[in-house]
């Protein structure tokens, strides 16, 4: 019993500390943005730990902490191709302490194709867009196709017999395939994989003829694959030898853009502060160089530009989506 008497005050203290901590970290109703941030900020990753979004957030974390003066807590809410995290994001309190990474075209295509995605594209309140990957067409080094033209001719000769792998359904690579089919008037067999790694594996193993992949994956295998066409307006800096689709007469532009967003209705002053912190990273020369080397195109779009970009892309994608006859399931 003696022991217990000794422990009791400590326990009571702990209850106080814990409950007080619990309330304190949540009680901050919309205070003025001047004092923001006064507590750690949650940065939610919509994909698994160790994925590209995670790595990017981990790179930003120390810089954000320095600029904002508060710890940044990174946590993961993977599932549904990101949809679960975004559905959660739009229902959070707009106090500036909850932000989530987002991807285009995911946030546009998911609400288009699913009834229950849990959020609408215009509810995603962007702070900044900081990087993009370009979708490109790749074949193995030993493939008989050396140019986009070879590939398209082969597909014309035997419609539907050429397999093209990519990560997921209604994703950047899938969209690219659909557009290529439409522009070139060919029929391909798209095979969706559960991610970029299995799609690459199937390509290298010769199980699929070609792959629509993101530039960060395409740069990883310079001695194993040939890149036949990048869906960007200009040549991609990390792959200077790969021609663009446009150069070869097909006006196809598909990229996957990454940014960060806060719940709708967040105080513009808070958005401004976060935006500045992210812009600082986006304009950092060392980080930009790192990104390029890893196969990303660094971009620096602020909140306003990001919003306009999302609106513009939504229009484009909705049109493509409808014209290709993909309807909501």
């Amino acid at each position, binding site marked *: 019993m003696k022991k217990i008497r000794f*422990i*009791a005050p400590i326990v009571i203290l702990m*209850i106080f500390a814990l409950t007080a901590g*619990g309330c304190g970290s*949540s*009680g901050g109703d919309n205070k003025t943005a001047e004092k923001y941030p006064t507590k750690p900020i949650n940065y939610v990753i919509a994909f698994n730990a160790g994925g590209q979004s995670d790595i990017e957030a981990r790179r930003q974390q120390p810089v954000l902490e320095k600029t904002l003066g508060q710890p940044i*807590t990174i946590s993961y809410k993977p599932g549904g191709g990101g949809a679960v995290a975004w559905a959660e994001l739009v229902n959070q309190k707009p106090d500036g302490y909850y932000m989530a990474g987002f991807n285009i075209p995911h946030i546009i295509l998911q609400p288009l194709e699913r009834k229950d995605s849990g959020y609408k594209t215009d509810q995603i309140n962007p702070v900044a867009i900081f990087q993009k990957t370009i979708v490109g067409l790749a074949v193995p080094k030993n493939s008989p196709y050396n140019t986009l033209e070879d590939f398209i001719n082969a597909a014309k000769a035997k419609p539907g017999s050429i397999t093209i792998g990519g990560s997921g359904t209604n994703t950047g690579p899938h969209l690219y395939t659909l557009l290529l089919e439409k522009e070139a008037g060919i029929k391909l067999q798209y095979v969706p994989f559960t991610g970029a790694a299995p799609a690459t594996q199937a390509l290298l193993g010769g199980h699929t003829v070609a792959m629509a992949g993101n530039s960060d994956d395409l740069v990883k295998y310079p001695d194993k694959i040939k890149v036949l066409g990048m869906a960007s307006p200009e040549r991609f800096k990390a792959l200077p030898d790969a021609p663009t689709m446009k150069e070869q007469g097909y006006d196809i532009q598909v990229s996957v853009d990454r940014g960060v967003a806060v719940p709708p209705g967040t105080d513009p002053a808070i958005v401004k502060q976060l935006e500045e912190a992210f812009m600082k990273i986006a304009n950092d020369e060392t980080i930009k160089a790192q990104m390029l080397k890893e196969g990303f195109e660094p971009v620096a779009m602020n909140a306003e530009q990001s919003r306009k970009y999302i609106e513009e892309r939504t229009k484009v994608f909705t049109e493509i989506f409808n014209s290709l006859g993909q309807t909501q399931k």
Partner: protein
Amino acid sequence: MLNSTSISSFAFLIIAAAAWYMTGDLSKMGSFFPRVIAVMMGIFAIIQIAVSLLQKKKEEPFSGIDAKRVISMVLGISLYVALIMLIGFILSGILFLAFFFWYLERGGDKSPSMARSLILAVLITGAFYSVFHYIFLVPLPVGMLFGG
């Protein structure tokens, strides 16, 4: 004969039928696999029902248990989950642990001490909360009452 095996197999048969029904309006590629599985599950379940109806085996799956303890634990866990959403991880954890430390001890040689249960509950909750919150940076729920 009608025993727990045939009843539970019947439940699995219903699940299989429901799965078949629910995948009706999906795309061909999206519904193929679940439908194949649903059919297999249905067939196995029907065989199992037939077998257990023919075999005259009596089953008493829930004999020899202290139903009161089990039911209170089940209710306790359910209430605990609901409480986490309402009042957050820390308080609900303390309440749950303290109650069951005390409750499960009842009927023993000594009468259980409520104070001791409470102290242990606070220590354990605090320790794990600290580990998850501060070391592994898992943001644990704070509960709706506290604005979570």
